[in-house]
């Protein structure tokens, strides 16, 4: 059984200008001990998929369809009759079964509380039998685990006394505090400098073998997923267009968008200077978006059918699948 399974999730936002269909019929699964990368550009719905899962949608957002199975329990808001009961369930799930790491650590850390207070709170919540002293000992151990030097002293400090990279480590320590089954990391390294990003990625890479949590890594950076993810899902226009193992995505991409993404990034390891092939146009606005493949307007191989209907998912292996009309038998020979 999967650790987390999302089936046909759709999320909508009501705005002044109309309805934004941010997540459209997304299905995902996450296995035990696995690192899944969700790659997409801003507005592709990658973060909103996870916010829907965690029950963190803003007030104008609403899950309109789908099931979210965490460890055999459906935690989609649609599965609860009473919204208060949903909130209560999610409160106990967040921080116990699922933890989230945000892009900007300062939105998550309370600037006027010592790190100690913020770290032992989730520990005490998770282990009600522990006393404060034991919790502090565990907090110090966690800080050491995420590579914060001299944690005995630094635990008494306030968030502003830490650098960006160190703050992100503290967030990771807080996320680990209650041994969550699923950790969702939303662009955890985007705000950091390259060398600090490398440190944090190294940390996540080392931790994933030590802990038995499954990790979902949301990012726009293909370089980040290449080094630490087992599987990757590519999102575009609120939909998952391709999913596969890291090698399948990088070496045998099937969807024109995946191919496009790979050919418009430059790889500094290559000695030859290749020309970049950008994808023309701009990402679609999910406001009042029409039926059909969201990528059709920017796709070189777009066909008439692409504008009319979203293609079914074609599978190539147990792990590799892609939603594109080019894979349809009737499209043989097109788009090569």
């Amino acid at each position, binding site marked *: 059984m999967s650790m987390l399974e999302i089936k046909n999730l759709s999320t909508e936002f009501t705005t002044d200008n109309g309805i934004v269909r941010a997540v459209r019929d997304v299905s995902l699964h996450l296995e035990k001990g696995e690192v899944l990368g969700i790659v997409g*550009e*801003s507005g592709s719905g990658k973060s909103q998929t996870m916010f829907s899962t965690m029950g963190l949608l803003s007030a104008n957002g609403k899950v309109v369809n789908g099931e979210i199975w965490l460890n055999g329990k459906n935690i989609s808001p649609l599965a609860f009759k009473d919204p208060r009961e949903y909130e209560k369930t999610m409160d106990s799930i967040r921080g116990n079964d699922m933890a989230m790491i945000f892009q900007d650590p300062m939105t998550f850390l309370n600037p006027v509380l010592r790190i100690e207070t913020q770290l032992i709170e989730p520990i005490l919540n998770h282990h009600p039998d522990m006393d404060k002293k034991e919790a502090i000992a565990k907090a110090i151990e966690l800080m050491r685990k995420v590579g914060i030097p001299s944690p005995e002293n630094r635990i008494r400090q306030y968030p502003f006394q830490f*650098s960006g*990279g*160190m703050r992100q480590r503290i967030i990771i320590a807080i996320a680990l505090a209650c041994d969550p089954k699923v950790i969702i990391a939303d662009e955890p390294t985007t705000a950091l*400098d*390259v*060398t*600090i*990003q*490398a*440190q944090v*990625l*190294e940390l996540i890479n080392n931790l994933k073998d030590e802990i038995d949590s499954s990790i979902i890594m949301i990012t*726009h*950076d*293909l*370089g*980040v997923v*290449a*080094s630490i993810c087992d599987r990757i899902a590519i999102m575009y226009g609120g939909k998952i267009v391709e999913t596969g193992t*890291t*090698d399948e995505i*990088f070496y045998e991409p099937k969807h024109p968008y995946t191919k*496009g*993404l*790979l050919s*418009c*990034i*430059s*790889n*500094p*390891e290559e*000695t030859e*200077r290749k020309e*970049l*092939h*950008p*994808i*023309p146009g*701009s*990402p679609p*606005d999910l406001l009042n978006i029409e039926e059909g493949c969201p990528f059709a307007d920017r796709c070189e191989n777009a066909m008439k059918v692409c504008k009319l209907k979203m293609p079914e998912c074609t599978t190539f292996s147990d792990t590799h699948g892609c939603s594109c009309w080019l894979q349809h038998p009737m499209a043989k020979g097109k788009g090569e």
Partner: protein
Amino acid sequence: MSNPILKVTDLKVHFPVAGGVFSKKQVVKAVDGLNFEIMPGETFGLVGESGCGKSTTGRAIVKIYNPTEGKVEFNGEDITKIKGKELSQFRKNVQMIFQDPYASLNPRMTVGEIIREPMDIHNIYSTKKERENRVRELLEIVGLKPDHIRRYPHEFSGGQRQRIGIARTLALNPKFIVCDEPISALDVSIQAQVINLLENIQKKMDISYLFIAHDLSMVKHISDRIGVMYLGNMVEIGEADDVYNSPLHPYTQALLSAVPIPDPKVARQKKRIVLEGELPSPIDPPSGCVFRTRCPNATERCAKEKPKAVKVGNRSVACFLYE
């Protein structure tokens, strides 16, 4: 060999920190003694992590900040003290593209007004009609539809806005453009569009770029030469390929090893040099070589003397290892 279009000599930009009444006045040494040259038609990439002073350098060149010391020469003329007509001429020649496409366009002006503004300021065309035609032409150059002219910036996506910003810059036919992280706020699929656009413009209009960025892979792609900065100092300058293939300065080595590689097989095997410690404060930088506190090869000498840039082949590197 032709003369450099831009020459920066010993540039220092220090900012006073507002201290309390009783505390000593302190300065942030954002840029502390920078030397480099940019040739006509060349793209010079300036890389480094946040707080290294790369953006300050760019802003000092376009005179948003006044240098504390040193010279910035454009076409052989020192521009740090120019005024009046000369300044106005300099403005026409040297322009800047900004980082944040959401903040760099005035939200209350239409796209047409934004792109027309430089022509209004410098009185380039006599009639409004001519200016408007030029605006339409510029919109087409950057790949937008001329009928977008009456729309407001907030209706566009990030990539489209950045192209509007580029169109505004081109309105004055500049010879030199400072690109201050022009792609770091954009989506991956859009970054390549902007890079290609900048390259095409360069070919057509023979413009030189100072390309400031922290994304090293894109900088390598667009730049002819690269300068690496650390804490207000230039640590290494060289041809883009040379710097990437065999970095000399210990900081450049660490920085490059940290770049994530979009190729899983390579990425899994890659050894990273992980730097110890954190970036020192630019208010009180380390004595001698500013990198010594984190350098794996630091010696006693590094604390005493500041290394001068030495030539290694056609490269220059500020480190005692290469003397």
